[in-house]
């Protein structure tokens, strides 16, 4: 009895998936091989059929990998092997991979990764229900191209079904009969229970992985799983703990994927009620117990979000896992409605990848690209150098012009690029099967099948770098006339070498974003609105919107490498400010001022989403008092219409780093019983002391 329960422990699964993730290098990815075998066999048939056959062969040939004790099956491990297929040496295998790659493949930019299936429909209808729809649609369409497309859809659905059945067989062989029975059922029929529903979702995710898609999301699990949970509860088939355990098993599997898997909870329902429910809380509990860096939990908040949910999110965040990120429904829904999304659909948004807004199961895959805005400011500043009359207004005109020119070029380039991926040569039948309206229309997701067109996020780099730079130029050069323009330019050219006083002037005598100073916060607000409206002026080739994004992840580092020193006092080739956050270390007035600054810009047109990283001392949020303090933060998000926040509870690691690199953390405030200090201005001994003390907390 004890062994049985132990073997079903999600912990065991999580440890195994973690090990897999660490050790998987050195194996051969066999998916190209299996696809090419099918491509050769079906050569001459329409492209959608050939691709569907390739898809089918991967799912038919791959090894079914199981983890000891798992309650949810589905692994990526079976797509690769330590040995090459029989009769192939390394060169022969490479030739096949080359043949595969020559055929080409959709990628992140042409619409492939960062996607999400229409899970509500899949769970309601089951694989066979969707297949029936495709058959019905086939009968209704007479156009041969549409019929071929629908045939390719059916091939992929049958392949999916077979893949599920292969898992059933594997479970049966291993003596896991009840799991096998469930899998047999969902191989064709709609799931009946919470467990079956989760299992079907997870295998769909694995199929996406079999196709080579990356960073696919689970979407609003607490919404589409809720009917199953309720039914099981009423029928006494499940307990809360049991449901939690199943989620933990899925979360443990996410650890195996080793890639960002977004899970969305809370928010509003399509009919504008509070959507938070028991499963929202269970998802939080699963996240704070499994503690995987890949379960990227997103919590949606709105005016009517219950206090208990604010609190439960905090309990998860305080573990240090960094999740959930918190989002403001009102800001995001307003933006989606403004570009023509019906209100009920807009309210059903969720995220893919890190923070990117998505209309789940209704839209083409998401993509983004990097737009180095501070580079354009430097260009504008160089241009003004040549002009006889210089003013802040003139600089703004030049900057606007540079942005407009670059934006046109950027979107033209993007459109030219994706025009190389026409839907007939790069069909996507499986994702089409799981995206609303493709089957009814008989059209591929990228050929006008999807209910909504794609969004491409243009990541506006270095918001704070820009705002701080503009504020410094405006105040020091033009308003106070402390710094002649030519001197500023000379200092920037020299990366402040020999201009240290100017450097210090720029750093210390101009306002910095993140301190609730309207002087610079208003510049940031203008930048957000201006760049977002510029993005929205352009249309994606084939339909869809370019929208702005302020969520640069770590691309602020390479983008910073591309450009010289900036008037905010930033050294050449060092990172730009990250995403929509104030430049790290320059917010010196504490978190409340920080929040007031980031609430200043109106983000509703930033439709891809924004990232504001808040770094906190864990000390600040201890005990009951800490929970109350944190509630004030999430309430500020909702009330002040901040779009997104995420929290990083800094600990010893950061302090060690700050001690080694004090220049990066000039204003890191540490609190020590009853008083506080700037960490990097303390002597080494005192720093060690604080680090040592913290180790005991």
């Amino acid at each position, binding site marked *: 009895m004890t062994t049985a329960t132990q073997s079903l422990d999600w912990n065991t699964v999580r440890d195994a998936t973690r090990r897999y993730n660490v050790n998987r290098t050195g194996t051969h990815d066999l998916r190209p091989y299996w696809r090419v075998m099918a491509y050769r066999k079906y050569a001459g048939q329409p492209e959608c059929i050939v691709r569907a056959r390739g898809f089918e062969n991967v799912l038919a040939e791959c090894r079914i990998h199981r983890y000891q004790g798992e309650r949810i099956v589905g692994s990526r491990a079976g797509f690769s092997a330590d040995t090459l297929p029989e009769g192939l040496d390394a060169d022969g295998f490479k030739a096949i991979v080359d043949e595969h790659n020559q055929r080409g493949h959709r990628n992140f930019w042409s619409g492939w990764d960062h996607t999400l299936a229409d899970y509500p429909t899949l769970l309601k209808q089951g694989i066979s229900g969707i297949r029936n729809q495709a058959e019905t649609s086939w009968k209704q369409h007479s156009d041969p191209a549409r019929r071929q497309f629908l045939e390719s859809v059916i091939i992929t659905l049958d392949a999916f079904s077979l893949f599920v059945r292969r898992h059933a067989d594997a479970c049966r062989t291993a003596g896991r009969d009840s799991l096998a029975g469930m899998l047999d059922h969902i191989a064709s029929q709609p799931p009946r229970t919470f467990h079956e529903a989760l299992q079907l979702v997870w295998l769909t995710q694995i199929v996406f992985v079999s196709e080579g898609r990356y960073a696919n999301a689970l979407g609003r699990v607490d919404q589409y799983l809720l009917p199953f949970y309720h039914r099981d509860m009423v029928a006494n088939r499940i307990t809360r703990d049991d449901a939690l355990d199943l989620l933990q098993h899925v979360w443990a599997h996410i650890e195996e994927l080793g890639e960002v898997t977004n899970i969305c909870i809370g928010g509003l329902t399509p009919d504008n009620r509070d959507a938070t429910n028991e499963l929202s809380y269970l998802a939080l509990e699963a996240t704070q117990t499994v503690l995987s860096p890949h379960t990227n939990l997103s919590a949606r908040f709105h005016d009517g979000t219950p206090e208990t949910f604010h609190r439960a999110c905090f309990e998860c965040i305080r573990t240090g896992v960094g999740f959930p990120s918190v989002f403001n429904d009102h800001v995001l829904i307003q933006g989606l409605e403004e570009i023509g999304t019906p209100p009920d659909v807009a309210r059903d948004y969720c995220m893919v990848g890190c923070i990117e807004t998505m209309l789940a199961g209704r839209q083409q895959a998401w993509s983004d690209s990097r737009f180095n805005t501070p580079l354009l400011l430097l260009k504008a500043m160089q241009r003004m150098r040549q002009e006889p009359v210089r003013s802040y207004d003139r600089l703004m005109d030049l900057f606007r012009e540079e942005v407009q020119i670059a934006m046109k070029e950027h979107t033209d380039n993007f459109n030219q690029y994706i025009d190389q991926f026409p839907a007939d040569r790069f069909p996507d039948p499986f994702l089409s099967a799981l995206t609303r309206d493709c089957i009814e229309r008989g059209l591929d997701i990228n050929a006008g099948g999807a209910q909504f067109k794609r969004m491409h996020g243009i990541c506006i780099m270095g918001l704070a770098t820009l705002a701080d730079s503009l504020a410094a130029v405006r105040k020091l050069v033009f308003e106070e006339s402390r710094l002649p323009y030519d001197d500023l330019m000379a200092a920037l050219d020299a990366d402040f070498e020999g201009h240290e006083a100017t450097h210090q002037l720029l750093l210390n005598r101009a306002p910095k974003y993140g301190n609730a100073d309207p002087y610079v916060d208003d510049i940031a607000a203008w930048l957000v609105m201006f760049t977002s409206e510029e993005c929205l002026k352009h249309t994606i080739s084939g339909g869809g919107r370019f929208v702005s994004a302020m969520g640069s992840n770590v691309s602020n580092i390479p983008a910073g490498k591309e450009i010289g020193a900036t008037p905010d006092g930033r050294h050449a080739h060092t990172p730009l400010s990250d995403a929509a956050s104030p430049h790290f270390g320059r917010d010196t007035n504490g978190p409340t001022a920080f929040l007031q600054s980031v609430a200043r810009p109106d983000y509703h047109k930033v439709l891809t989403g924004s990232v504001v990283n808040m770094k906190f001392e864990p000390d600040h949020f201890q005990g009951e008092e800490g929970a109350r303090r944190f509630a004030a933060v999430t309430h500020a998000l909702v009330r002040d219409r901040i779009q997104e926040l995420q929290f990083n509870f800094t600990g010893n690691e950061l302090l060690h780093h700050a001690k080694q690199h004090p220049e990066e953390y000039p204003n890191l405030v540490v609190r*020590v019983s009853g008083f506080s200090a700037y960490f990097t201005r303390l002597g080494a001994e*005192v720093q060690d002391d604080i680090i040592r003390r913290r180790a005991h907390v």
Partner: protein
Amino acid sequence: MTSSGAGPTYDPAVMTPITGTVFDIQKFSIHDGPGIRTTVFFKGCPLRCRWCHNPESIRPHPHLSFDARRCIGCGACFKACPNGVHRLENGRHVLDRERCRQCGACVETCYAGALETVGRTMTVEAVMTPVLQDRSFYRDSGGGMTLSGGEPTLQPDFAMALLDAARAEGIHTAVETCGFCDWNLLDRLRTRCDLFLFDLKAEPASHESLTGVPFERIGQNLRRLHDAGSPLWIRLPVVPGVNDTPARFQHAAEIIRSLPRIQAVDVLAYHAMGTEKISRMGLDTPPLNGIPTPSSEQVQGWIQQLAERGVSARTPGSA
């Protein structure tokens, strides 16, 4: 403008602006009373605690501070100072502080921020502007404004005007005091203040040698505040080897137990940080040298000693 509740409110239109000297306004202050607070640090203190960690608070007037580590050697201050305070001595930048008139000219030219004037004269309105910015955070977290120092009772009119201004806006108010002042000052603050954070620094026998003032009046004031019904939190600074003796804990515990309406007791563990600030300020208060910052086990030990004497204490902000 009419007053919105009991007690007078500050009205800049009809009153001469009251000003005070403040050395810092700290937002998101979480160790000075409940919730998220803004702490206004008053300059000037009647005590000279040997472990003082806010030495910038001691002198009542603005004061020049120099942090050599931030100095980039630009030489601007040498030219700016009319009194020749800044000098090079064997290649080292030294300050002839005797001659400094605190005019701030050098500070203005020091872009590196190595020179700072600690302390500003501020109007009530100027203090209230940042305080009011965070109202919604006070409301959501149960926080408010704390006057600390230094010693707020050394600038009583300014303190009262700030408390009135905060109360008129419905903001919770707290005052941290060492208790060494005339009772009538505390009595006047009392009616405008929702919470006192009252420091007990040492037991009577060593109080004067450690803080420069005797304990007697402090003890009386604490009792009177208590008897008058003021909500009280007690703060116990503890410095290892100095005031962590059984006698000290015994004394604190006896007082606390005799005042049943005390709501909380915070143990403030010593930290060596003050010694650095003192050198920056050019102050000669004898710092406590060589005392290591206590470990959290030590702090827990003190809390335990208090517990054994019937007092339940905690570290601030951790309730």
